[in-house]
């Protein structure tokens, strides 16, 4: 929608105002102050909250395969995997089954979460190949004041590379443990007229493993799910930028077999999920006058989900499909001294929302009209006030209107050039999605009366740059939720559950993040996060480790032609869906790479879970039902795995 367009428009003032720069004699230039370009990435999202960034350099050096692996290296975030989907956890969220955990995922500023489950892919279901990512920004905290519905616990903004960053044709191939094969081809160019083109196609296949589930042992089964871990993903991407115009299409499809037989399916029987996502985005930025910028963005999204499971030895199919169209207009005005005013309006039409099963056909649609205004006010030399809100008018399937207001207020103090302190209060909301509100089957009861959930957050962030390439950030926060949407088992003998608005919970926590880039090109990122997340009854939240710490070290070897990177992650203990507690764990990964092993040929080799640690993820509720005598509360994760990648540039 806007995160990418916002700074893109803002950037234009950078050089344009200094046309005199080229005419000025050198002596004069030498007397002017310059703003050093730090090697540490600076945030581009205009958010007064804590922001963590991973850039293309790290994605390449660590060899990250999926968005989940990128996020896993970031402050306070953690990943749970059930061998089919990857669930994200962080400040105040992390229940497996919540997928992205009420986080809005933006691709070049446009939301990619679907309109059936509000989810967005983080693993091989992800809409973008990591090789095409220039940077990933994680903005923790409520984002509804700008982004509206579903920017609940935070936003993740993915900015893709420009054609020029590829500069030619690039092919790559990879082999990995469990018969993983990956192939990619990218083409990128900046043309003579300044236009940037980027095209890419990629695919991944993996045979996977045979998993053993002790709880599945029965008279008829030895507890091993055989040949039920195969995965196949395909992605296409195209992007064109020229003279204020920006057009982009991203497509991804993934088919995966499920070994865990969720939703009480037959164990060790055919079960597959296919997720397909398409996003198209057309944007135009223009400078209307010296003090007024306009950004227009039209977008289209399509999501399809197909499940084929086996219940009582017979195939059982579920298909979901969503489509939406939207238009977002944004004006940034600097008419008044000391004010930077952002005014936006957005119209979004979710004209297709369908779920069909042998027993039910759901067909829904909704429309949303939104206005948002934000003003960044310079109060005094070192003080800024950031105030704004977003108003959403929503018309549901039955023609009923609701409205939601999401205000945000932040005070920013810049005591020195190198330090900034931000105190913010912000709010967010999320409407129940079609699945939570209307879907029903043998395991789930619908709840037409389900209301929006809300979040209020207060946060204090202190950021200091010790020198140009050393940054430290500390933050403390408190989140309070209200009418939290949560699936609860129905009372009595029923095995059904239902989504309900529960009394809210709280999350109190503190984060610390450190980043340094030395002259000799050694790079370090480190973070530690503590959080205390509780439900309305003061009980510890499911799958919410109290401590999460990360260390990432990247070291050049042999005159920088080689690079070794090491990452270490430590997570505290967690509570499962059955209220048992599972232990914490530490994970280490190592990657060695050479940029020019042969002319134009780069090679990298990586080991994940270097010390072959046994560890478990909390299982989502969906996997519990089958083994009700002996519930599957945890899912054993992969031991040590290897990958080897070669990248060749045609120049």
């Amino acid at each position: 929608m806007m995160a990418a367009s916002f700074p893109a428009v803002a950037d234009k003032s950078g050089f344009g105002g200094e046309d005199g720069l080229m005419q000025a004699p050198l002596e004069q230039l030498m007397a002017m102050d310059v703003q050093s370009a730090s090697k540490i990435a600076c945030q581009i999202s205009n958010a007064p909250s804590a922001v963590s960034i991973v850039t293309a350099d790290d994605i390449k050096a660590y060899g990250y395969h999926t968005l989940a692996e990128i996020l896993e290296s970031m402050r306070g975030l953690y990943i749970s995997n059930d061998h089919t989907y990857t669930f994200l956890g962080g400040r105040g969220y992390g229940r497996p089954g919540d997928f992205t955990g009420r986080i809005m995922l933006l691709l070049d500023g446009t939301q990619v979460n679907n309109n059936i489950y509000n989810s967005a892919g983080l693993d091989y279901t992800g809409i973008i190949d990591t090789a095409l990512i220039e940077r990933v920004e994680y903005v923790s905290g409520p984002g509804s004041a700008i982004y509206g519905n579903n920017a609940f616990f935070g936003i993740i903004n993915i900015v893709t590379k420009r054609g020029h960053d590829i500069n030619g044709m690039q092919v790559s191939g990879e082999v990995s443990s469990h018969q993983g094969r990956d192939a990619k081809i990218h083409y990128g160019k900046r043309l003579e007229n300044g236009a940037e083109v980027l095209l890419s196609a990629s695919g991944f296949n993996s045979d996977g493993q045979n998993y053993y589930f002790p709880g599945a042992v029965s008279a008829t089964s030895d507890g091993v799910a055989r040949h039920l871990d195969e995965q196949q993903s395909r992605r296409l991407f195209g992007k064109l930028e020229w003279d204020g115009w920006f057009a982009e299409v991203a497509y991804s499809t993934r088919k995966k077999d499920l070994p865990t037989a969720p939703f009480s399916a037959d164990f060790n029987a055919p079960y597959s999920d296919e997720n397909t996502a398409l996003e198209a985005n057309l944007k135009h930025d223009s400078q209307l006058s010296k003090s007024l910028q306009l950004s227009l963005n039209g977008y289209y999204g399509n999501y399809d989900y197909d499940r084929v499971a086996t219940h009582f030895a017979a195939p059982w199919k579920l298909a979901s499909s969503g489509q939406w169209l939207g238009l977002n207009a944004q004006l940034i005005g600097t008419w008044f001294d000391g004010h930077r005013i952002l005014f936006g309006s957005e119209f979004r039409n979710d004209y297709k929302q369908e779920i069909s099963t042998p027993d039910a056909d759901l067909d829904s649609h909704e429309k949303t009209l939104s206005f948002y205004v934000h003003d960044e006010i310079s109060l005094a030399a070192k003080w800024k006030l950031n105030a704004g809100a977003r108003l959403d008018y929503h018309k549901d399937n039955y023609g009923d209107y609701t409205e939601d207001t999401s205000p945000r207020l932040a005070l920013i103090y810049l005591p020195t050039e190198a330090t900034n302190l931000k105190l913010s209060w912000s709010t967010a909301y999320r409407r129940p999605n079609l699945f939570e509100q209307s879907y029903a089957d043998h395991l789930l009861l619908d709840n037409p009366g389900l209301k929006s959930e809300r979040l209020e957050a207060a946060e204090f962030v202190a950021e200091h740059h010790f020198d140009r390439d050393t940054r430290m950030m500390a933050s403390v926060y408190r989140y309070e939720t209200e009418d939290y949407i949560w699936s609860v088992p129905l009372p009595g003998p029923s095995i059904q559950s239902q989504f309900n608005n529960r009394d809210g919970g709280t999350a109190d926590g503190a984060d610390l993040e450190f980043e340094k880039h030395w002259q000799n090109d050694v790079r370090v990122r480190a973070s530690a996060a503590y959080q205390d997340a509780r439900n309305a009854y003061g009980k510890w939240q499911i799958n919410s480790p109290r401590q999460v710490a990360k260390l990432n070290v990247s070291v050049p070897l042999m005159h920088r032609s080689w690079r070794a990177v090491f990452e270490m992650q430590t997570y505290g203990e967690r509570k499962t869906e059955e209220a048992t507690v599972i232990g914490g764990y530490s994970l280490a990964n190592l990657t060695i790479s050479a940029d020019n092993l042969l002319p134009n040929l780069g090679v990298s080799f990586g080991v994940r879970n270097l010390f072959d640690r046994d560890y478990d993820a909390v299982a989502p509720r969906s996997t519990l039902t089958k083994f009700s005598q002996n519930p599957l509360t945890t899912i054993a994760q992969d031991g040590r795995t290897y990958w080897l990648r070669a990248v060749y540039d045609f120049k």
Partner: protein
Amino acid sequence: MKRIVRLTFFLLAVLLPGFMCAATAEPIPEYDMKAAYLYNFAALTSWPEYTGKQIRLCVLGKDRFKGSLEKLAANAAGGIRISLSYLPNLKASENCQMLFIDSSEQANAEDILQYLDNMPVLTVTDSPDLFDAGVMIGLFVENKRLTFDVNYAQTKNAGLSVSSKLLRIARRVLQ
């Protein structure tokens, strides 16, 4: 009606607080300044057997200028015209009068300098290692100002003549 009242209230609440404050003068982004220096270097250098007004500026390695060189190229007001190319590899450098080498090419320093040996191409870098390896001009940020060092011996070997003004205001000149 209720909705309109609310919207009005909402807009007022957000827009009302009006303070008049002077915006502070922003420093110039480093790479914008580097682009301006490159323009000056082009104007203060003469190439043997080349009298054209068009100077081809090439960039090798990662592009950190983020569009400021394009603005340089679009500016026709000055005495010289800059045309721009981003090199996929060194072999494409034949028609360049100037070559900016980014620090990402550090690992290939030897090959680059060997290839360019005595070619009439004005080489510029902002990497200390590359400058030490023999690039003609090094651009460095020092105390928030952009300064430059000149390896005069290298420019002479390549047959380039850089103006005495350039040598005079350089921080350091290697003879």
